[in-house]
């Protein structure tokens, strides 16, 4: 999570729609079609190379010029991969870490955000500034002490190590605070008159009204957990808690790995498919989240 992007988030909300008028029309029809083909080609081709390589048999990998379409196509690299890596377990690890982490991060961020947006207490601004300040620290500063902390908590190679340190996101708190501030207070006051306490207001009014922002945070939190590499690299080395990116990177470490590209690409397909599918399903939230979070991906 990058600090400066959060500043932008204050005035960006909702999703980006295509330009409604002709103002943006800058290319002619032929140019446009050529442009569309070029963009799709450049963006998708590497993924096709990944897919195609994963479907080749070992003996067709080292060919010049490379085969574009695998002939014969085979799934043997996937079955070979399943022998090297405990695939069901690794996929489960990735999914469990990402889902639990996302859910936890949303709840914790929302509760903190509520305290900043709706409760009034002395020192609130100072504590909030402290939250903002932590967003300026580069991730690598945290990696070493978090590694040491996880180690002294006895969490090495456990799900806790993968999930818990990421739950406390100053950025998530910040994002949701902005969303909560945008909700008119009248709603709550009506509920208060009916005798509701803050918790009821939080669950029954604030949260349902903030669903778009919660979804945005959710999508990005999920992506962050699913794709994370630098931190899990050092706290989750054992196969029973290893996540997909780590397992995938270890495929490249073996003595013959540099020619087993079909295997590596099969692993890449398995790692990337769920997140691509999630993206295509949640594109709307992704777009707004990308703009406000500044995550590189």
């Amino acid at each position, binding site marked *: 999570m990058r600090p400066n992007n959060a500043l932008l988030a204050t005035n960006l909300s909702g999703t980006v729609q295509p330009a409604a008028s002709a103002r943006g029309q800058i290319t002619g029809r032929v140019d446009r079609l050529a442009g569309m083909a070029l963009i799709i080609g450049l963006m998708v081709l590497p993924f096709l190379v990944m897919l195609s390589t994963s479907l080749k048999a070992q003996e067709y990998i080292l060919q010049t010029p490379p085969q574009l379409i695998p002939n014969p196509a085979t799934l043997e690299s996937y079955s070979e991969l399943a022998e090297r890596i405990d695939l069901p377990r690794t996929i489960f690890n990735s999914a469990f870490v990402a889902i639990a982490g996302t859910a936890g991060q949303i709840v914790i961020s929302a509760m903190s955000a509520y305290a900043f947006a709706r409760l009034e207490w002395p020192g609130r601004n100072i504590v909030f500034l402290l939250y903002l300040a932590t967003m300026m620290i580069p991730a690598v500063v945290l990696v070493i002490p978090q590694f040491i902390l996880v*180690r002294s908590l006895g969490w090495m*190679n*456990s*799900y806790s190590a993968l*999930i*818990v340190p990421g739950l406390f996101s100053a950025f998530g708190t910040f994002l949701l605070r902005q969303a909560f501030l945008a909700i008119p207070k009248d709603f709550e006051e009506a509920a208060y008159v009916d005798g509701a306490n803050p918790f009821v207001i939080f669950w029954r009014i604030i949260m349902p009204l903030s669903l778009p922002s919660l979804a945005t945070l959710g999508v990005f939190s999920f992506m962050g957990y699913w794709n994370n590499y630098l931190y899990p690299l050092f706290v989750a080395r054992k196969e029973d808690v290893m996540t997909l990116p780590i397992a995938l990177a*270890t495929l490249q470490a073996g*003595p013959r790995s*540099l020619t087993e590209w079909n295997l590596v690409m099969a692993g890449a397909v398995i790692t990337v498919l769920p997140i691509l599918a999630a993206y295509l399903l949640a594109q709307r939230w992704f777009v707004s989240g990308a703009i406000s979070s500044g995550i590189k991906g």
Partner: protein
Amino acid sequence: MFRRFLLLTLLCVLLAALPAAAQDTTTIRYFTFSAAPDHLEDLDTIIAAFQEANPGITVEVETAAFADYFTLLQAGVASGDAPDVFELNYENFVTYAANGALLDLSGMVSAEAPFYPRALEAFQYDGKQMALPATFSTVLLFYNADLFDQAGVSYPTAEWNWADAVAAAQSIRALGEDTWGLFSPVQFWEFYKKAGQNGECSFFNAEMTESTINSPACVSTLETMISFMNDDLMPTAAELSGVSDSELFLSGKLGMLVTGIWMFGAFQDATFNWDVQIEPAINQNAHHFFANGVAVSATTQNAEAAAAWAEFMASSETAATVRVESAWELPALNQPEYFEAYLEQTPPANRAAVFMALESPVTPPVIERQNEMQDAVNALLTQAVDGELTAQEALDQAKAELDALIQ
């Protein structure tokens, strides 16, 4: 709906926060780099024998490639999550022993233990036996006899020096565009060994107060190593494009390869005739003496079981037999009957070269900041290979870096 969501979430978080399930007290974890990927089944055979002899102890294997192994081990030891028993090579043994990461195994070694005295000494620190020698291995000159025949040159002999090898390599290289003469990697380990073949070059002075890696003898050694590539007898890394040297050899496109005897097993699949010879000399013969030890973590909860496994792995008859039969390095035991069985296997026909090689052993230079030394030397060697630096310049810089590391 939100309440259910909250409960579910909290449950998830709670579940995740539970520390890893308590370990079975009789399970010991063994971390190894030498077993994967070719000898995992052989390791399983040894484990099965051990578990049968020691009911109630289960050995759990963790493996990593050599390139990653020490980073992972370091992280594990540092995190207090060290494997109970792990493999250590001689170079890294010193660091771990000096930092108190190893359990003293002195009590485990009885007077009649069948270890090679030299190997046993290698794993002593401050007079204590901090690890047991398990295996040793060396590096030889492997050659593709069919290519030698085609080129009409005679096979390598024990009397060869590198000039003979280069002459043969030139003839083999002439066989075809994609046929290479020889491959001898340019990296830290090869360099200190070739330094031994030169005889005059050593990385440090005897008192270990200063690096002498830029001495004329070292420069000329490095120039010899680089000349193979400059003379186009040996493919560059890019020409290999990720194909390993052993794969190139297996594909029948390489005349001579300098590599370890642990490749015997993998080369059984070769579709051509091949054999080994001791390495050519520069001024004298010199060969690697790689000793791998088995150490027990100082923090193990199951010291007895762990030590029993370490001893079984190092010196049991089963372990020795399995290693010999599967050509998975040599047990560091002073018992000729194992070696006789080893020698009987072919290919390679000239297996005796393994023992000839061990008559001229060199051990690596070892300092406490070993990894930094290796990385620094390797980076400079690649610059010399690429011609960015001359051998002299590269080694002058190496001297400066090594001097800083031993301060």
